[in-house]
């Protein structure tokens, strides 16, 4: 495993651990759900302005988790694939040697 992959894996694990710890802390502090502040402000703004917020695809909280996960997986794999093309030293050496 090269240095970058190791660092990226450590960063992923650390970030996931941080999110889990924050989530657990939030539940422990008595917050029943930790929904997005965007949604909360949207709701408050809609109530204050007598509006009804609508969405192209209305998802419940579990649906949002699934949707965000799928989007993150697609985006993450795309970014990772391109990252390797740009930053992988071995493949770039190959490109330079052939170029």
């Amino acid at each position, binding site marked *: 495993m090269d240095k970058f992959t190791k660092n990226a894996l450590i960063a992923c694990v650390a970030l996931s651990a941080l999110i889990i710890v924050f989530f657990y802390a939030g539940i422990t502090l008595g917050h029943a759900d930790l929904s997005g*502040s965007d949604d909360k402000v*949207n709701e408050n703004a809609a109530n204050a*302005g007598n509006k009804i917020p609508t969405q192209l695809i209305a998802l419940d909280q579990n649906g949002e988790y699934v949707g965000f996960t799928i989007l993150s997986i697609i985006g*993450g794999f795309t*970014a990772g694939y391109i990252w390797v093309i740009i930053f992988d030293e071995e493949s770039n050496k190959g490109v330079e040697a052939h170029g």
Partner: protein
Amino acid sequence: MHISDGILEPQWIILWWIIAIAFITVGVVQIRRRVKDNPQCLPALALVGAAVLVISVWHIPVPVTGSSSHPCGTPMAAIIVGPFPVAVISAIALFFQTFVGHGGLTTIGANDFSMGIVGAFTGFGTWVALRKFRVSIFWAAGMAGFIGDVFTYVTSAFQLAVSLHPEALFHYWGIFLLGYVPTQLPIAIMEFVFTGLIIRYIAEMRPEMMTLGRNPIRPTVGE
């Protein structure tokens, strides 16, 4: 900052779309020119686009406030590819995010203005200004991430207030901002850290990438 459909008044939806389209048009022209001049731009744009898509749906819980929020990623993107192309990238990311119930279709213009234009330009401006004063790459990029993130939400609160309560603009601007700030401030600090680390990494590994955004302050490797 993902304002849903059905909240903003039609005239404001149209105005934000017009402004966003103006920036997107300039961004498309810049992208086409840069890709023609330097084909290396294309994978960098794709990378930055995918990163913005993921980062702006990253919901990180903030335990004290009992809610979660996400960073923007657009200040980091603006440092790498320049602020105008980020208006295009952000609009594409926002379009895909509507399919997971995040933001609205009619509000893509408004959301792109806050995240892809204000977030990108304030972040990029901060980066350029701090680099002119010889601030290190980590701190300059980090501050760009922080400022871009904060200004994105300041703009969203303004968009809601000016559309729904123009008669008491500053009062409601403050109210909507207070809805965002407690959760967003820790996230903005996190955006500071990862923007600083990623830009420093790119500057060390691929310093030539830092000129893709026509960056006036070429970083010195190893700062």
